[in-house]
């Protein structure tokens, strides 16, 4: 451990380990001070864990507020002590996660003291909020692993949301709308690919132009078309599909297996892309193109073709993410309704270290910050709503700057390739 000065992928320097230990202690003191002393003794916090649709109804979890906070604080303090004394080596981030979890749980117990909180609802909205982020991040993974930066996820999502809504309403079939959304994403992907591969336009600028273009075009068309033809903006929504048996499992069922098609597609895509990218010959080639295109070229991989292919695929996945807004969530299109989720997706991709599963985890974290914000505001926690709304973005900054630290993008990311 002492030799791992500048950091093996999982390990950290001794100094940093000490500092982290102090942070853990500080968090535990925070738990004692705010959450244990802040809860009057005798109050209990109730967490609802059942939707009433499962095999067995899980009883509400009722915890004594003060002693629970004390218990969680003790765990955090203990871990902090161990961290300073001997460190956890490459499990440090896991321990950091555990301490932060203690803090959040203690916070929730304090916030919900003498009240009840629907934990199940909070977790399922975490997953739902993570859907467009995960899909957007997957789009980024596909493009960037092949060496093309895709900052246009937002614009692709917005365009697909619009196209999906209008196609589904015009033809009266949600699946057609979904396909149209994916196709429009693919088209913008192709545009990005042509700009950045064929014409070697700076990829950040190319992506930004697509974002501005998409916002302008969809706003114009929606103001023009939808104000006079409202029936073109009522596509309906995909309904919830309950997976037999699985959806009846207590706690897990209602959260993961009682959702609409987008959520299941998301699971599938995370698994498929993770497998394809790291376990197949195709994935090896893509990664070679993203890391060292010249070497890839030398062994006969068609660099530009791989890049075209991946950027278009990325566009399709972003299109799916966009269609979620209109066909999976609200059932109509309105101006700028993606509201910057595409950029958070980009952050999720970086936080997830350009890995599909990592990106999914990161998206869940943002989703959690988002739904936590809602619950805290409902529980009347004395924090200004403006600050609560910052939570997902604060998490982004904290995580990307503090925890991810030295995340390494594919070496040739953003660089056009020219055969010499």
């Amino acid at each position, binding site marked *: 451990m002492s030799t791992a000065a500048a950091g093996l992928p999982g390990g950290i320097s001794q100094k940093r380990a000490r500092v982290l230990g102090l942070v853990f202690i500080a968090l535990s003191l925070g738990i004692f001070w705010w959450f244990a002393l802040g809860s009057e003794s005798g109050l209990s916090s109730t967490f*609802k864990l059942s939707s009433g649709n499962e095999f067995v109804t899980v009883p509400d979890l009722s915890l004594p507020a003060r002693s629970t906070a004390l218990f969680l604080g003790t765990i955090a303090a203990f871990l902090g002590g161990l961290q300073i004394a001997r460190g956890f080596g490459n499990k440090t981030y896991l321990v950091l996660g555990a301490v932060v979890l203690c803090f959040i749980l203690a916070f929730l117990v304090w916030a919900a003291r003498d009240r009840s*909180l*629907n934990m*199940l*609802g*909070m977790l399922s*909205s975490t997953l*739902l*909020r993570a859907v*467009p982020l995960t899909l957007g991040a997957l789009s980024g993974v596909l493009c960037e692993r092949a060496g093309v930066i895709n900052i246009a996820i937002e614009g692709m999502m917005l365009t697909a949301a619009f196209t999906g809504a209008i196609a589904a309403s015009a033809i009266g079939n949600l699946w057609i709308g979904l396909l149209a959304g994916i196709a429009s994403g693919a088209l913008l992907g192709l545009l990005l690919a042509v*700009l950045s591969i064929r*014409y*070697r*336009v*700076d990829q950040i*600028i*190319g992506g930004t*132009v*697509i974002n*501005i*273009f998409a*916002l*302008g*075009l969809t*706003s*114009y068309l*929606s*103001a023009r078309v*939808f*104000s*006079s033809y409202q029936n073109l903006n*009522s596509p309906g*929504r995909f*309904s919830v599909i309950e997976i037999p048996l699985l959806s009846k499992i207590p706690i897990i069922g209602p959260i993961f297996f009682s959702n609409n098609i987008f959520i299941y597609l998301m699971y599938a895509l995370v698994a498929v892309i993770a497998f394809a990218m790291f376990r197949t010959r195709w994935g090896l080639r893509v990664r070679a193109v993203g890391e060292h295109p010249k070497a890839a070229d030398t062994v006969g991989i068609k660099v530009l073709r791989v890049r075209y292919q991946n950027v278009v695929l990325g566009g399709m996945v972003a299109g799916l993410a966009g269609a*979620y*807004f209109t066909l999976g*969530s*609200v*059932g*109509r299109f*309105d*101006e*700028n*309704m*993606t*509201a910057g*989720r595409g950029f958070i997706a980009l952050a999720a991709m970086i936080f997830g270290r350009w890995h599909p599963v990592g990106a999914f985890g990161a998206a869940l974290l943002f989703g959690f910050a*988002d*739904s936590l914000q*809602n*619950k805290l*505001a*409902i529980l*009347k926690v004395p924090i*200004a*709503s*403006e600050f609560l*709304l910052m939570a997902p973005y604060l998490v982004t900054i904290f995580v990307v700057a503090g925890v991810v630290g030295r995340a390494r993008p594919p070496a040739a990311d953003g660089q*056009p390739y*020219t055969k010499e």
Partner: protein
Amino acid sequence: MRNRGMKPWLIAMFLVLAMFAAACAEESTDGEDTGDDTGTEEEALPGEGMTACQVTDTGGIDDKSFNQTAYAGLEQAQEELGVEAKFLESSTPNDFEPNINAFIEQGCDIIITVGFLLGDATAAAAEANPDQKFAIVDVDFFDFEKGEDVVYDNAKELTFQTDQAAFLAGYVAAGMSETGKIGTYGGINIPPVSIFMNGWLAGANYWNETKGAAVEVLGWDGKDGLFTGDFEDQDKGRNTTESLLDEGADVILPVAGPVGLGSAAALQDAGEGSLVWVDTDGCVSVEEYCDLFLTSVMKNMNIAVYDAIASVVDGSFEGGLYSGTLENGGVGIAPFNEFDSQIDDTIKTEVEELQQKIISGEIVVADYL
């Protein structure tokens, strides 16, 4: 290496294209009905040759609530007075000032800026162009440094005491709630939004006080509460609503323009609860969700905007404050529509009485916060 580097003309071309599309979105002046209005040929309308121009807040002209209601006033003026109605949409707050300036250059007879967030830009424009007439919705100009009210002779401030109408809606909602919890959330915590939530809370409190009940209001405590952060993210609106339903609220008041449509989707999928729409009668502006609307807190911006335009046409325009109240019909609650049969007659009569009491000043909304 000869061919390295990007082609500047290509970027330039795409930038121009993108800007063009963006500009199109903003400059979509409405020409639909100009010129071919029936009746205009037979008899010249008083406002013929004049233009009334609206700059929207973000959210779009067809947002089913805020911008759209104000624009209804312009359309009415176009039909009845013969003025030409135009609008510019603001995609971001950065568009406010350029949009206002574009209309000043076009020589509009009155520029109507819709929304609290346009306050600063409008005040600056009104001060710099004393001959240009303005009307602004939801702003009462106020100089915070000097602590005094500001009046521009060329700017009409159209404000609405929506808390009076929301009070009535909150009262009915408290009476209708089966779970004993009603909810609300807003877009951004700014006065024209929170005033709805204040009225909602006060109405529920009044119900509790007179009936000895304990209906709880989730999402607003008189100062702060539940917000989505903008007027665009409908997915967030849906999510926020699901959170409120999870915690047991069964009547919800979303004060967030189109974001509220996310609530309607959430309720429809959940198959429970009802909504109170804002700004317009939901059963008229969002017909497809009519079965979800218990009632609506109407903020009759269209009437105020129409009156402002009419005053320009007949030359009686003067700057200063207009305040829409229950008394002058500037605010009100919509019919109960599909819920009509479910609401007790006693509640209906009580609402009528409450309305009279608020008009007469016997009940002051702020006393019940």
